């Protein structure tokens, strides 16, 4: 399978360096973000996978211990590069921040115990968001030394779900009410510059089902309205199409005896009335009808997604669930579709 409108042609790495992965809850944001971080880590390249919701999803996925609030190598990619991981904690980010600008020292830690930090990030969600995105943007821009090369070739964020993504990224608006100048204001400005640049792309993970597709369509419209760069649609858990509607219709119409004969030929019992092969025909055709109905439904959902005019990638449903091997498989699939 290949992207319907390939984002990258040939093997040149795309200019996008900050990949933000969103989608309806449970559609596979964490899984797909991990696969993307692996896929982007070609030979000699280094990528960073960050999570922001305090759920230790990355650690679970890579079967490693909980990630500390610092970057740590979590995998070697199929393309030969390295993948680092980090779980950004908003409370610690705020403490860091206060330390940097207000030198709170031990009082800062005491206030954490009191719940003041939690309080601050709760009453001002915009503050929380700017700290999280700020930390990620810092990793995007970081260089080995002044004027040196970038530390990470790409940063992939396992982001909040579609329903919250625009607010989450639109930090400028969110903190506008908080600070008109000072360090938070500057931080928000810097974050917005990165987010609205060609270096950033927001990708949406979806399934071929009504609600996730609807959320994707709504999410794209919201992101576009906010001037945020939309990247691609990642269709996850795609199941193979084995029989199409037309075939099933023909089969049901007049080939029942012939199908029974064929089944019998393959050693599945007698094709006569009451024989095993004959008895299999009805349930097998019923399954085929259900399959065709699903295929037709998926076709409708695909058409809705196509209307968005975005590059689209597909990832198969892994029958036995996702383990480390499964993520590598999905990463390969992304590379096969031109992701670099």
């Amino acid at each position, binding site marked *: 399978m290949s992207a319907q409108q390939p984002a990258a042609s040939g093997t040149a790495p795309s200019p996008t360096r900050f990949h933000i992965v969103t989608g309806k*809850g449970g559609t596979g944001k964490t899984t797909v973000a991990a696969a993307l971080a692996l896929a982007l880590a070609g030979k000699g390249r280094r990528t960073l996978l960050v999570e922001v919701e305090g759920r230790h999803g990355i650690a679970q996925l890579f079967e490693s211990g909980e990630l500390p609030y610092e970057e740590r190598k979590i995998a070697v990619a199929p393309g030969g590069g390295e993948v680092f991981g980090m779980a950004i904690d908003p409370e610690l980010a705020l403490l860091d921040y206060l330390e940097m600008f207000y030198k709170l020292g031990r009082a800062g830690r005491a206030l954490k115990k009191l719940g003041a930090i939690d309080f601050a990030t709760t009453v001002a969600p915009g503050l929380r968001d700017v700290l999280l995105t700020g930390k990620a943007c810092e990793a995007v821009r970081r260089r080995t030394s002044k004027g040196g090369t970038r530390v990470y070739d790409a940063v992939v964020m396992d982001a909040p779900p579609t329903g919250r993504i625009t607010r989450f990224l639109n930090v400028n608006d969110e903190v506008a009410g908080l600070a008109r100048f000072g360090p938070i204001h500057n931080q928000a400005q810097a974050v917005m510059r990165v987010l609205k640049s060609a270096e950033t792309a927001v990708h949406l993970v979806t399934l071929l089902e009504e609600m996730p597709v609807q959320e994707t369509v709504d999410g794209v419209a919201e992101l576009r309205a906010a001037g945020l760069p939309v990247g691609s649609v990642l269709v996850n858990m795609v199941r193979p199409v084995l029989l199409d509607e037309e075939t099933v219709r023909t089969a049901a119409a007049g080939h029942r005896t012939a199908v029974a004969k064929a089944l019998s030929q393959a050693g599945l019992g007698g094709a006569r009335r009451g024989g095993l092969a004959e008895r299999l025909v009805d349930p097998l055709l019923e399954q085929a009808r259900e399959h065709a109905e699903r295929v037709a439904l998926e076709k409708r959902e695909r058409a809705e997604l196509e209307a968005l005019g975005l590059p689209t990638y597909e990832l198969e449903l892994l029958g036995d669930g996702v383990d480390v091997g499964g993520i590598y498989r999905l990463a390969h699939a992304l590379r096969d579709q031109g992701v670099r």
Partner: protein
Amino acid sequence: MTWQTPLLRVDPLLADPATRIIVCCGSGGVGKTTTAAALGVRAAEQGRRVVVLTIDPARRLAQSMGLTELDNTPRRVEGIDESAGGRLDAMMLDMKRTFDEVVLNNADPARAKAILENPFYQSLSAGFAGTQEYMAMEKLGQLRARDEWDLIVVDTPPSRSALDFLDAPKRLGSFLDGKFIKLLMAPAKAGGRAGMLFLNAGMSMMTGALNKVVGAHLLRDVQTFVAAMDTMFGGFRKRADATYRLLQAPGTAFLVVAAPERDALREASYFVERLAAETMPLAGLVLNRVHGSGAAQLTAERALSAAEQLEDLAAEEEDEGRAEDGTGAAGGTGDGAEDAAGDGAAAEDAATDGATVSGAAVDGQELSPESLAAGLLRLHAERMQVVERERRTRDRFASLHPEVPVAEVAALPGDVHDLAGLRTVGERLADGRPAVT
């Protein structure tokens, strides 16, 4: 091995006049809303006066239930068979409006106005994590108090963990009740004790820093909000506690909804244990979107090997067909034979890759019965693999919780978006038996 779990019987539960509240919970996307709506339709058509409280239903489902107006009150659902004397009302939760109602009902008009206009209240009521769960509980309490229905079916908000429904309201309460808010309100009181002196020094430093970071006016907004709410807090908490107790009452039944997948069942497991710890009455587990097969006697392995045989046969026949065509054509010698061989290999590749078998696949010719049968068999093999996997996950849950009654609902081929679909789900739910044992 198959575990013998007790069967969850939904109809007696719906028919029992002692059942007053049914709560459908479970992790994200498993079918909570669908199950709640299907139960509502079924109970109403069996003669009960029912109200369903839905949360974020899919658009088409909402339309089919007439849920187009977002006015936060139950409306009668058209198209329900009311011949047994029942009726169905349905509503979609509007959390902001529900919060506003709480404020309006608990504060005098001047104070209520001050709260509703407070910017901090506005962001709290629109988006604070846990507000939706809190307001779902609040609405449930209100519906119960109106006493117009003999059965209330409650859907729960989409969240990754089913436990959020029980925990989130407390989180919001404990935030509004938190230590830090108290300190903000009464720094003098807190400073009175010797041990707090250091903290107090930190406090003024912190409020100073916080003022800079979150903005002085925001902190002021929070303070005025808390001051205005202060008199309401008691009532607020009392209501929440009352609703929580309602959930523990004998007239309440929890249905845990799960998909037959590892993660969803793990969540369901946590939830079952939690309900037991809270002495909340669990009616059973709804295992939704389960796959079965009418030809379960044919294993995946056997189906696959039969499919391969048939594909070989089909490829041979096709080769013969081509070869005959080739000799029939004037001058067609070596080239034709090579083509045929190439095509044959390609066809085989496609088949083993599980590519689409289509009526138009073979040069516009009709598909041979062999290829068609092979396609049906591959489809069956795939289905049986799913059935097997679902059975294993189900059995793992059953071995952990052998006492929990289970009803299985077979997956519909499409999604559920109208009353007919809800009736079908209701029937399958009431039957509850596994499609495959």
